[in-house]
Structures are given as structure tokens and as C-alpha cells.
């Protein structure tokens, strides 16, 4: 199966699932969408396994790599900036903002910690850490 055919099959499965869910809810049978959803996932996985052509390659990983890095940099910066702004407002007479400021600042710190540990992990995995 080509990737194009797979996408068509996936679209049809989704259409059937949505139609089934609407009909089931209309008739008041709320449990039907759950097994239907599971069956849809299984059907899509089976169809995906029949795809012969390469769908993801190194270029996709390179794109994901850059996008993740950009998302991290922008996300962490925005979180830290808003967190610090809220903390400044807190000290300027808005104590109700303190928990939000702390949440955002700690989230930014948490992201940085995850980034540092994942960088160390991948540095070790990909070599280049210690001279031999």
C-alpha cells in the first residue's frame, strides 16, 4: 500500500468513526464510541503496517530536531518572562499573582533541567564526551 492510499484509508476510518459516534450519541448509546475508537485505532495500525514506502526519514528527524529546539527556546523564554512579570506585579501589590508566577517560573526551570539532562544523555549516547 502506498502512503497516499493509507491516508485515504485513514480518512475513511475517521469518517466512519465520527458518523458512528454521532449516531450512537443520538440514540443515547454512549458506550459504543469507546470500542469503535479502539477498533479504528487497530484498523489504522494494521493499514499503517502495510505501507511499503518510507514515510519518515532522516530529514523528518532533522526537521523535528530543529522544531523541538525552537519550541523549547521560545517556550521556556516566554514562560520565564511571564513568570518574572507576574512576580514583579506580585511585589507591586498583587499577591494573588504569586502562585501563578511561581508555577510559570518553576515550569521554565523544569524545562531547563529536562533539557540539560536530555543533552547529557544524548551526549553520552552519541559519544564525544571523554577523550580516550
Amino acid at each position, binding site marked *: 500500500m502506498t502512503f497516499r492510499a493509507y491516508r485515504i484509508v485513514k480518512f475513511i476510518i475517521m469518517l466512519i468513526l465520527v458518523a458512528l459516534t454521532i449516531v450512537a450519541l443520538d440514540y443515547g448509546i454512549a458506550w459504543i464510541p469507546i470500542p469503535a475508537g479502539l477498533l479504528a485505532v487497530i484498523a489504522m495500525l494494521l493499514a499503517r503496517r502495510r505501507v511499503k*514506502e*518510507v*514515510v*519518515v*526519514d*532522516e*530529514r*523528518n528527524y*532533522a526537521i523535528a530536531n530543529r522544531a523541538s529546539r525552537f519550541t523549547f527556546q521560545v517556550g521556556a523564554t516566554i514562560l520565564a518572562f511571564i513568570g518574572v512579570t507576574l512576580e514583579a506585579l506580585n511585589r507591586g501589590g498583587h499577591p494573588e499573582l504569586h502562585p501563578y508566577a511561581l508555577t510559570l517560573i518553576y515550569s521554565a526551570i523544569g524545562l531547563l533541567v529536562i533539557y540539560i539532562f536530555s543533552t547529557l544523555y544524548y551526549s553520552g549516547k552519541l559519544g564525544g564526551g571523554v577523550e580516550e
Partner: protein
Amino acid sequence: MARISNNIRRLRFDNNEMTQEELAVKAGCTRQTIIALEQGKYVPSIELGFRIARAFNVRLEDVFQYEG
């Protein structure tokens, strides 16, 4: 712009006008990657470079040139 150029488009036409899809299947990558390579927007890994060269039955340096 990449400092590594390639002859993929010419090599495809020299090989019975091989399509981008056929080359992608032979090299084990996506057609979008072949398009990006031909446009000079993407520089492949050494492994993919070798696979592309092998798809054309030529040496790596017959496909890619370093213009440093």
C-alpha cells in the same frame, strides 16, 4: 545555502529518467527528501549519501561535491 552540491537530477536522467519516487524507494528515503536534495536545501547524512550513490551505481563523489 549548502556548500555541498550534487548531481542527483542529472544522474536520474542518465539512468533512464528515473523518477524521484523510484530513487526514494531505492535509497530508502522519502520523495520530499529527494526534492530537497535536488534543490540544494538539504545535505544528507553520509549513510544516505552512500545509499543514493549505490542507487545510481556510482561513487559517492560522483554524486556529491564539496565546494568549501
